């Protein structure tokens, strides 16, 4: 059976698979796709996964205000989190500040949020950026909001786990300090990914395709997940899930 799905739905399903077996996933600001993925993973976990979503009143059990997420992370109580970046480089450095000379950036992004802290403390940081172009995936970021790797003497139980884009999935190899291509999304080619990636990365000889979501997964995404995520991200839910 050939199931029709949107690019967003493939990414949501792919990220949700990376959260399987975890206990607690937190979602930061402006993260509708990671938020949807976490809610999907929670639905599949039959209640085992806890999701704490910033900006949500329904899906957020923090009672100590804005500080609790950070306190929780430092204690190792959060297993996975998502970060993005206006620029991401091959060492998994991320830039959430701006392009060009700082501080008078040519293009200014919102800012670093909690990245300079959470990237160090949460074991499974999934980098997510839908746009996969040489202007986003660069050889070297213009500003390091948070570094991908740290010296031995720096307390760092956390760090990059994967990079998910609109074209493919990379896994970060901490020993090598570089990304390795894991799978190509259906309809995308290695030539295209090579051309659109500004940094160098490892690749296996045979590159698998990113698994397509099953009919049951699509049903969950369009039903429960769409409904749950719309509380925090109404515009996103309307754009992606409304028929």
């Amino acid at each position: 059976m050939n199931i029709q799905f949107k690019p967003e739905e493939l990414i949501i399903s792919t990220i949700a698979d990376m959260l399987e077996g975890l206990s607690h996933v937190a979602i930061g600001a402006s993260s509708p796709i990671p938020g949807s993925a976490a809610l999907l993973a929670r639905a599949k976990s039959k209640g085992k996964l806890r999701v704490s979503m910033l900006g949500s009143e329904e899906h957020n059990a923090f009672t100590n205000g804005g500080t609790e997420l950070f306190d929780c992370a430092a204690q190792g109580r959060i297993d996975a989190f998502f970060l993005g970046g206006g620029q991401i480089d091959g060492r998994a450095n991320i830039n959430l500040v701006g392009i060009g000379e700082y501080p008078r950036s040519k293009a200014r992004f919102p800012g670093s949020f909690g990245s300079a802290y959470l990237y160090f403390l949460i074991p499974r940081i999934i980098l997510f950026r839908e746009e996969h172009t040489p202007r986003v995936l660069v050889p070297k970021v213009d500003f390091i909001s948070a570094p991908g790797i740290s010296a031995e003497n720096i307390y760092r139980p956390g760090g990059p786990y994967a990079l998910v884009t609109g074209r493919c999935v990379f896994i970060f190899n901490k020993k090598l300090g570089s990304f390795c291509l894991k799978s190509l999304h259906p309809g995308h080619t290695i030539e295209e990914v090579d051309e659109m990636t500004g940094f160098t990365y490892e690749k296996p000889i045979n590159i698998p395709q990113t698994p397509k979501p099953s009919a049951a997964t699509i049903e969950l995404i369009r039903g429960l997940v769409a409904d749950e995520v719309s509380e925090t991200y109404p515009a996103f839910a309307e754009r992606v899930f409304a028929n």
Partner: protein
Amino acid sequence: MSLHLDNINTLIELIDSGNKLALAPDYSGCAMKAVRYLINHKVRDLHLVGVPSIGFQGDMLIGSGCVSTVETAAVTIGEYGLAPRFTDAIKKGAVNIIDGTCPAIHAGLQAAEKGIPYMPVRGIIGSDLLKKREDWIIGNNPFDKEDSPLVMVKAIAPDVTLIHAPLADREGNVWIGVRREMMVMAHASKTTLVTYENLYEGNLLNDTNMAPGTISSLYISALALAKNGAWPVGLFGTYPADDTHLRLYIEMARTEDGFQNYLSQYVLDKEIKE
């Protein structure tokens, strides 16, 4: 002596040009109505502190020329895109930006709350943020003789915190529920000004359900009633954001002229006459 003022204008007069002003993000308690008064009042040289980020109120204050410095983990309007007046001001070099990260801002306020000069914070080392911050220092964990670097963040003590809350009582106690970053803001600031949506009949501190989410009047300098005081952003548990108006703002604030039009239609001298 009652902390309650008759109107928002009197409340806003307690904010002076040059003040370090702490504000909450869009999902917390934004005193948007008071911010419109503040713009009318033509304060200048504010040093905004986003706790830990700021949204529409920051963008409007920056666009109105009220701000010289922005200290924040982000200026974000979430799903609506990039904050137009902030982005423009950065490009022109019209505001000084002090880029931070959320937990460091919380920690700085907590240090002020505790009356201590600094607070250690995990992470940050290796971030370019650190290079630009004279108020962040790399120290060593004093309990560990080994090489164990740790960032020390200087205390942040705002002159004024300005927030909007769902409830306040006649005594001047203010209910903020689980949005407890506003409690830290109030504890850390010299002056805390509050607009509130509804008057709570009775004393919030005498209600065991309400007291844990209440900022004691001990920390409150003055309050004023402001119905729909967070509009056009939402107020947690009370009302959602006015999506249509926020889109209109984004559209108009795209250009300097458009923003001036927005001000003359929705901000300047409108509400003062109410």
